[in-house]
């Protein structure tokens, strides 16, 4: 496999992990976040510092990045998760930008705006593939248990969720922390693949890209998120010459999806064998109808 193809696959894998986190938060709990790139940055910088300054093995740095992201999400969640919808979103946006600015400000530790260089390349295709399989399995198992069901209940009707005894604050926190851990995970893999990170890589653009991907893929669908991530990561690679207009395409895609398919590609459905079978049956029925008309 050529290095280029391998690189693209690794990038898709890393993006899938970050997007899955947002998918759990936004698609299954309906908490919108525009700050998950902040958690990616925390994962990336924490792991990079652990590897280079403390000579930690990669796995420890990776876990360290996830752990610090989780801790910060706990603290942030305590402060902000009591806020309703849009207000919560604004605080995540603020958090993302604050993190970026803080990293720029902490020049002696993080290298500031110039970036952090000299990270050894540890992220291989193999590690990314394992990470993606693990991330998908954990997300799926989590969502297909009482934990996931409680998140969906909060998404659908928070007051009713309360009325059946769900501690909504606790489960929102769970969702937020899981999404931060996924972002930290993706960030750590990212840092150890590109070997050089700057704060700008984790700006508002990145955060909105993650959320937009989830919306395009369809809220409440893990497979939708995975498909959307793959397509949206591949597109700029295929259309290299117009890659600079990426955000423009995202904007147009979101407008089109919201007007034409308000639930996204796969809203509230998962791609599965039975789903494909149903689709094929429907198509066959359509053809049969046409034949009869003819």
């Amino acid at each position, binding site marked *: 496999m050529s290095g280029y193809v391998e690189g693209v696959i690794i990038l898709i894998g890393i993006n899938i992990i970050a997007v899955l986190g947002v998918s759990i938060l936004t698609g299954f709990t309906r908490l919108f976040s525009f700050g998950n790139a902040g958690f990616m940055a925390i994962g990336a910088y924490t792991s990079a510092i652990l590897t280079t300054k403390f000579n930690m093995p990669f796995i420890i740095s990776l876990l360290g990045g996830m752990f610090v992201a989780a801790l910060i999400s706990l603290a942030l969640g305590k402060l902000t998760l009591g806020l309703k919808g849009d207000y919560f979103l604004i605080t995540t946006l603020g958090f993302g930008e604050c993190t970026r600015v803080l990293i720029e400000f902490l020049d002696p530790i993080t290298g500031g705006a110039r970036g952090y260089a000299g990270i050894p390349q540890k992220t291989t295709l193999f590690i990314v593939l394992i990470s993606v399989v693990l991330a998908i399995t954990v997300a799926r*198992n989590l969502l297909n*248990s009482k934990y996931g069901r409680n998140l*969906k*209940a909060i998404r659908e009707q928070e*007051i*009713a*969720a309360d009325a*059946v005894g769900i501690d909504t604050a606790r489960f929102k926190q769970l969702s937020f922390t899981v999404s931060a851990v996924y972002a930290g995970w993706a960030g750590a893999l990212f840092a150890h693949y590109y070997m050089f990170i700057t704060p700008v890589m984790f700006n508002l653009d990145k955060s909105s890209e993650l959320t937009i991907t989830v919306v395009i893929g369809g809220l409440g669908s893990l497979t939708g998120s995975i498909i959307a991530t793959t397509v949206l990561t591949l597109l700029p690679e295929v259309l290299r010459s117009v890659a600079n207009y990426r955000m423009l395409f995202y904007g147009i895609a979101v407008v089109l999806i919201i007007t034409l398919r308000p639930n996204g590609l796969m809203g509230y459905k998962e791609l599965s064998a039975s789903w494909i079978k149903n689709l094929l049956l429907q198509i066959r029925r359509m053809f049969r109808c046409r034949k009869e008309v003819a």
Partner: protein
Amino acid sequence: MKEILKIDNLTKKFGGVCAIDNFSVTLEEGTVHGLIGPNGAGKTTIFNTITGIYKPTSGIIEFMGKDITNKKPYQVAQEGIGRTFQNIRLFSQLSVLENVFIAGHLDADYDLFAAILRLSKFGKKEKYLRENCIELLKILGLYDRMNEKAGSLPYGHQRKLEIARALALRPKLLLLDEPAAGMNRDESKELVEFINELKEKFKLTILMVEHHMDVVMSICRRITVLNFGKTIAEGTPKEIQTNKLVREAYLGGEDVAC
């Protein structure tokens, strides 16, 4: 008979408005108690205060001898108080089964790791819970529609599903907020039988808000009548029907001051 719910001098003020004024009631186990009154009398506010959505300004709410006055909504539910809503609040994107499944979450006492690692404990508990939920749906006559989206059910079935979801909590006390809303005479008659059946089967005590007088009069052992947050009468259906103040509140008459 054992007291199950005891509310003592409950008052709830919103700014200067006195939504509930010194409301007291005692519910005996296994009875149906009705809460009636004109619009804006404070019936739903009482429900929301019992279930912890509103904090009372003063007063005490005791459930099975335990003070639940300042508990949060989810804690009140966990104590064993289930409720339905006046304006239906189902998990509408989810299936009928999932709606009930969610409410049974307290029975699924596995932890996060068991869920993620799919330990055998997880499978056992889930299977047990699923069987229970299906059983419950059969009792409520929703089994045939178990895989349909809750939001696409016909109105009457949505009301039933709300009751099913509340029952999945295995409550001791059920609060029904206008269960007969939007039903015609025949349907409400059926509802009365249905509620009586459920009450026996699940050993429930029921507190209900209802506007359909035929429902209230035929099912409730005692009734409290509210007007502008004040209790104007309490007694058996017969006593209520002949009460002068109640007639005034419903048919108009001299002003009842708040």
